[in-house]
């Protein structure tokens, strides 16, 4: 039994390697990393027994990376093909699974052995439910959500680096232009405190009252899907279809609590809800709830926090 791990996102590859290492140790099996960034020793140091090093692939494109992945699957005789669940990973994984004619479980955030079955958990129904699944046959493809597992402490580890030769096909899809996104979206994903705005705000200008609160708390500002996608007041949103976040404090301001939003903030340590509607669903899924007008509560919070500082 072997685990093959790949993600074009190094950090995510390391997180998956840590979990694969743990699972492989239980079964006395082996972890192989597919490395395309030219630094195979890093992957050994993060827990891989072997690093398959493929050079000359360039930046991610489906056709060449598919060929590389299939070569690695074959060479490793992999049973569990673990791929980072980035958007690129999710375009690759089902194609690998379809080529092999095997099962695929996407966006898993937990993996454990029950007897000889590798059982995973993933969200379904818009994030409102957790499905527990396994594949009755190996090999199987599993994509792993970012930040589901902690990477290992970096250490000098020994392992085998194997150069793989692959005939690299031309991409079928031509990239004409790459546009950088506004940087703020990644700030929100990694923020320790997030203040998030919902439809309780009546105008874009009114969001300014959150700036002062954000400044005092050192927080990033996010919002719900309607604020971003429908009204265009911000570039991105937090939720199952947007950014999934894991802050220690998430303060919702004028957010009703649609399941897609709540699913995206589930991993927050503390959730605060401020909404003048007592029956808003958000109050039922928060740690501290305030039934009050954001236009009054937010400035009052700013005042109290200033005095405290």
């Amino acid at each position: 039994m072997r685990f093959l791990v790949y993600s074009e996102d190094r950090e995510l590859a390391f997180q998956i390697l840590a979990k694969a290492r743990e699972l492989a140790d239980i079964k006395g099996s082996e972890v192989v990393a597919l490395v395309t960034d030219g630094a195979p020793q890093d992957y050994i140091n993060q827990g891989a027994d072997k690093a398959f090093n493929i050079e000359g692939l360039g930046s991610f494109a489906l056709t060449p990376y598919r060929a590389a992945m299939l070569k690695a699957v074959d060479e490793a005789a992999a049973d569990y093909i673990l791929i980072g669940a980035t958007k690129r990973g999710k375009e690759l994984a089902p194609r690998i699974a379809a080529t092999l004619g095997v099962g695929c479980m996407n966006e898993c955030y937990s993996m454990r052995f029950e007897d000889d079955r590798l059982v995973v958990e993933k969200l379904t129904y818009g994030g409102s439910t957790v499905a527990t699944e396994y594949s009755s046959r190996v090999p199987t493809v599993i994509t792993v959500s970012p930040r589901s597992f902690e990477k290992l402490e970096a250490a000098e580890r020994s392992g085998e680096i194997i150069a793989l030769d692959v005939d690299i096909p031309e991409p079928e899809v031509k990239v004409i232009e790459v546009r950088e996104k506004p940087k703020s979206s990644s700030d929100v994903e990694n923020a320790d405190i997030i203040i998030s705005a919902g439809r309780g705000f009546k105008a874009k200008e009114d969001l300014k009252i959150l700036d002062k609160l954000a400044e005092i708390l050192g927080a990033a500002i996010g919002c719900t899907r309607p604020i971003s996608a429908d009204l265009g007041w911000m570039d991105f949103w937090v939720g199952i279809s947007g950014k999934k976040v894991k802050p220690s404090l998430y303060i919702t301001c004028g957010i009703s609590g649609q399941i897609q939003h709540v699913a995206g903030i589930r991993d927050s340590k503390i959730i605060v809800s401020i909404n003048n509607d007592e029956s808003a669903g958000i109050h039922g899924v928060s740690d501290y709830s305030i039934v009050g007008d954001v236009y009054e509560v937010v400035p009052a919070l700013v005042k109290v926090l200033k005095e405290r500082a």
Partner: protein
Amino acid sequence: MITLLSSVGNIGRRNMRQVVLLKAIPDVNEIKFDPRSRAPVTAGVKKKISELDKRALEAAIQTKDAVGGEVVVLSMGDDKTNTALLAALAMGADGAYIVIDPELTGLDTNATSKVLEAAMKEIGEYDLIISGEMTLDSMSSQIGPRLAELLELPQVTYVKEFSVADGKVTAVRDLEDVDEVVEVALPALITVTREINEPRIPSLMKIMRAKKKPRIVWDAPALGLEVESIKAMSYVIITDVTAPLVERKQIKIEANTVEEVAAKLTEALAGEGVI
């Protein structure tokens, strides 16, 4: 066993042909949970076309308006699906192909994509296949790319904007860190994100007329498929689906003035060590 619900002539071919993959799913906002088992109760919940698939259809109709041709939809499901697809025909699809076979329920993505591959072979010629980037029930994001692999098509996933001209699709992909502008020759498969458009709401007149549009229903034998061999290709087994326990403190902060409320909250958050 299976009756051809309606088969009003053939779905003809003119110019560019788009096939939209649609799935009818229980409305995720309507789902209730069994208080004891925490399992979702989907019985009695009406099926609707999955939100992102509806946007895929809207995109196909807009493309048809721009460059001509026709739009057909392909779905797999049950009689509820058949009803839900009337909405697609009302929106402007020219015809619907539906695989309904009670023997083929509960298949995983591997087996489902094999059925859709067989259906695509029956459909014949096509230039562009479109679907949503995922359906909200299973959230698997696999059917599009799997079908592309089986049909040996190039794919462009997470498309938030696209146009068709000169036998090519030019699309903007919404990736985590960047937007990627790409170009691919037809035939191809694309999956779209929520930002692509706002789907139209059809008029009552169009809803009435939708019933007259061709709907072709296939079961497994009609597609030349053996039920047992398809079932044998379904590997992923779901053992449990439950709503996760929400273990939040649910403490209400109440006081006479808003300043006192703010002070109480601040105190509580400081106590939690998060500020």
